[in-house]
């Protein structure tokens, strides 16, 4: 008699993994990378638009204060660093 833990539900040999991906569908790396790349481009466009709105408000209503100038600089530098890091991680794919 087989040990219960060694009997799979479909009667096949132990260690068999049923197909998680349907036939005809491929999760190959190029298509996955292309999907991520396209998503990142859309995200970047949105990010730039929102950043432009923020900068508009700072320049128009910030009264040219030092706090606003500092905020602009910090925001810009860190945004560039993060975007560059994301791009670098993307290139590793």
């Amino acid at each position, binding site marked *: 008699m087989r040990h219960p833990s060694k009997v799979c539900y479909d009667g096949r040999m132990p260690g068999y993994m049923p197909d998680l991906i349907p036939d005809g569908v491929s999760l190959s790396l190029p298509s996955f990378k292309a999907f991520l790349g396209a998503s990142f481009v859309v995200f970047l466009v949105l*990010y730039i638009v929102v950043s432009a*709105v*923020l900068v508009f408000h700072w320049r128009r209503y*910030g009264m040219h204060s030092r706090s606003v100038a500092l905020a602009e600089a910090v925001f810009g530098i*860190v945004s560039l660093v*993060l975007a560059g890091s*994301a791009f670098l*991680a993307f290139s590793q*794919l």
Partner: protein
Amino acid sequence: MLNLDNGETIILEVRKHWIVLVSQVIASILMVVLPLVGFFVLRSISPDVLDLIPHGTATFSFLYFAWLMVVWIVLFIQWTNYYLDVWYVTEKRIIDVEQKRAFHREVSSIRFDKIQDITVEVKGVIATFFNYGDVRVQTASEDSRDFSMTVAANPERIRKIIFSQHNRESERTQRVRIVDEDHDGVPDHLQFKGGGTDGV
């Protein structure tokens, strides 16, 4: 962009206390840290979980940096909302600027001679320790609304400055023009023009 009169300068800028940003900063830090913690916990429980997606670590890094950009910009949206809600106290008036949303801004002003009362409320140990409270400026006019700011930094100083400007405005002497149309040396407003009997 503030339209000030000629010679009008800003004496004081009144904003909310920095403590209002603390909760937002803490939330941002949690949003930054939690995905990392989740990733390492998941990897320690099930090391093969990242093999389910191609180049799991690189993919996670890429998504994580994108997530950081989201957190970063949300933080600055909140800071902008905080920074652009301000009172400008000049020699002549108080200008209340409220940035309600992007491209939605409300600006009101009130001259010092229209101010009826200034109320300051500092409630609680933390408010007392960090020196913040609610400031309310009541106006004499029924048409204009009262100005109020909650969690204002250094509320007593705000009250003092507004009050001193209000007193200065009230005590300023006005130039009076005396009219004497019949040129008899007696100002018109002091002449008795009635035709009746004196003393009646």
